C-alpha cells in the first residue's frame, strides 16, 4: 500500500460495464513527506475521498478486492483517508 494525494475527479461516460457507478479519482502517489513518487494514477474510490485529501491506496489485484463486486477491472483503489502520518525520525 502507499500514500497519495487526490488531485481531481476523472469522468468517463463510455467505459467497461463493471466500472459503471464507480468514482474514479486522479491521484499523485507521494512519500511520507508528501513528495511525489512517479506518475499520476487513476484510482477507484471506496471511502468518499475528495480533491486535496491525503489517502492511502492498494494496488494490483488487491485493488479489485476492495470493491463489490470484486471482479471489477481496476489496479488501484483508495482504501483510506489519512488523518496523520507520524514519523519520529523525520520530525526531529
Amino acid at each position: 500500500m502507499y500514500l497519495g494525494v487526490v488531485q481531481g475527479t476523472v469522468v468517463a461516460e463510455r467505459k467497461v460495464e463493471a466500472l459503471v457507478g464507480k468514482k474514479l479519482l486522479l491521484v499523485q502517489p507521494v512519500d511520507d513527506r508528501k513528495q511525489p513518487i512517479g506518475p499520476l494514477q487513476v484510482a477507484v474510490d471506496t471511502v468518499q475521498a475528495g480533491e486535496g485529501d491525503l489517502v492511502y491506496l492498494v494496488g494490483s489485484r488487491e485493488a479489485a478486492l476492495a470493491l463489490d463486486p470484486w471482479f471489477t477491472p481496476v489496479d488501484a483503489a483508495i482504501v483510506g483517508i489519512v488523518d496523520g502520518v507520524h514519523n519520529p525520525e523525520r520530525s526531529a
Partner: protein
Amino acid sequence: MKYCRVIGSVTAAVKHPAYAGQKLMLCQPLDSAGTDTGDTFIAVDSVQAGPGDVVVVLTEGNGVRQILKQGDLVPIRSIIVGIVDSLDA
C-alpha cells in the same frame, strides 16, 4: 519479502472495513548496509513492530490473506511478518 525499517505510522478514521483495527506502519526499504533505498510504502503490522525496528515485510496479497484469516476478499497487499534481530551480510 522486503528488508525495511519502520519509520512511522499512519492513522485513518475513514477506511475500508478490511483495515478496521489494523495498525498501519510506514516502511523504508533498506539495502544490506542498512542504507535507505527506494520509496517508502505502507504495511499492516502482525508482529507489534515500532518505529526504528528493522523488519521483514511480505508484499503479496495471497500471503496476507493467509495470515489475517479474514476470508478471500481482503484488499491488503503488504504486512510486516518479522522483526530482524541481526543480519550477517
